């Protein structure tokens, strides 16, 4: 018997990712059913929030990688 916990087993990880993806798709499809009382027109576009959240996070991480090139220093930078 392996020492791995439930969450570490590849089989279970794949299962969780599948459930997660299914929830994402379900949330996207709910856009067709639920009516929005939008304050801005773009809120009514199909999948706006999902798309925006995804793009925002990818942009955030890619920009942070660039920022790291600019500001990252050795841990003892100020001590020298």
């Amino acid at each position, binding site marked *: 018997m392996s020492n791995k*916990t439930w969450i570490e087993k590849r089989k279970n990880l794949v299962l969780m*990712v599948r459930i997660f993806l299914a929830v994402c798709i379900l949330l996207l499809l709910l856009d067709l059913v639920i009516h929005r009382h939008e304050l801005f027109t773009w809120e009514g576009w199909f999948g706006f929030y*999902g798309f925006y*959240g995804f793009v925002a996070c990818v942009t955030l*991480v890619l920009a*942070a990688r660039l920022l*790291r090139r600019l*500001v*990252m220093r*050795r841990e003892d930078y100020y001590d020298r």
Partner: protein
Amino acid sequence: MTASLPPALIFFAGALLVALAPGRLRPAMTMLVPLVGGWNLWHLAQGGGLEVALFDIRLELVRADKLALLFGILFHLATFLACLYALHLKDRMQQVSALIYAGGALGAVFAGDLITLFVAWEIMAVASVFLIFARRTPRASAAGLRYLTVQISSGLLLLAGALLHISETGSPAFGAIGLGSLAGILIFTAFGIKCAFPLVHSWLTDAYPESTPTGMVFLASFTTKVAVYGLARGFAGTEVLIYIGVAMTMFPIFFAVIENDLRRVLAFSLINQVGFMVVGIGIGSELALNGAVSHAFNDVLFKGLLLMSMGAVLHQTGKINGSELGGLFKTMPVTTGLCIVGAASISAFPLFSGFVSKSMVMVAAAEEGYWIVWLLLLFASAGVFHHAGIKIPYFAFFAHDSGIRTREPPLNMLLAMGLSAALCVLIGVFPSLLYGFLPWQVHYVPYTADHVLSQLQLLFFSALAFAWLNFAGLYPPELRSLNLDADWLYRRLGLGMARRAENAWTKAEDGGARLAGRGGAWLLDAAARHYGPAGILARTRSTGMAALWIVILLGICLILYYL
């Protein structure tokens, strides 16, 4: 009217008693203080206030209106939870300074005039720094001194602004001030420093993570929230705050993604959350202000919870860098679960507290037509989830197994986290509990189908982005490193200039000394020539010679007299 004391006074008296008490009683006494304070606060809420006269100025030590009371309740609650969290401590310095610090915060939010506010402001600055010093490392001492310098500067600006304001208006009352005068600008800057406005924020991200595991829970609860209160009281509806606030929500998330010290990640996230409050104050509508102060309330609870969970990790393992942690869920499952509740709350998941307060600010921004602001806030919301909601629990408790095997933290830490988590969920599920205390009438309904759906879509697709970036290897790994920030200006550039100036001074001093040495030698030579043993003034003369000279002088006098 029932008799009640200024809330701050109870905390100061409590701090004194705790300082004198024997070690075994001290922890329990620290917890008693916010309880007694809470009982007093209840009486205070029934109506009352306290005024004293200082010379010819009337000082309003206690003004208990709805805005002050909300923060009063919050600070009592925060002190209670943090004291419970710190119950295992035997460190008198931390126990006493934490109570004085909390008392200062209460003094500030109940202060009805600028002089009382200033005094409380400085008490907070001085008391809080000991929570950083208490780490007792050289790094913490240095960071504490930098922190104190900034805090005291903020206090001096407040004092200057307050005195100018009093001389202009003739009244010390602390009400709406605005940016119309120099006094207003000075006070605004003082608040801005404590609020961690961009470019004057780095005292927070520099010093807070150097404090003790328990100290940071106190620190994150009071200073910035008092500043938020000050802005809400004095500068509601000041438009520039909207843009400052947006900048505060935006820039920290980039730093948070690449920061290795997980408590420093939370410090950046603290600035980000305060940014939402500042935007709300800048918009200034009732909905926005309610959103700002209720978010301050929730932030103290969920940020406190997250900091407690990271403090527990630091307390148990002695490590806090993402690069050294991971896999702790195996040995700290309860802490993991409670941390996830905090993460869900800060990310504004439906049924958790952030959901019912942050959205008020967002809706207010949309209602007033600030569409760029709204889009940026939405970006920041996704970013919060990314760095605070996912990164913190993921890198501490999951990710790669670091091999660290530890235990759950002491029971009192678990209880404090459990209570905080319960409050986060309680407020998230029954928002009316919080809305009832808000200073203005609340007409806002957080739980509508479209709001819940929008938020879930935003969060799930943000999580999807995290998962994808992680699988694709695009996610920046946790590295042992340090990131430059605005504190570089004074820690490197300023220090470099100071060192160069010091060098120049040393050189000038050397040159001066050499010049003085040469000049001195010449002077000595000259003196020796004249006064030395062979000098003209050192020659000995006989008494007769002197008598002769006296006779000559007398003769001259006599002749002159006759003439």
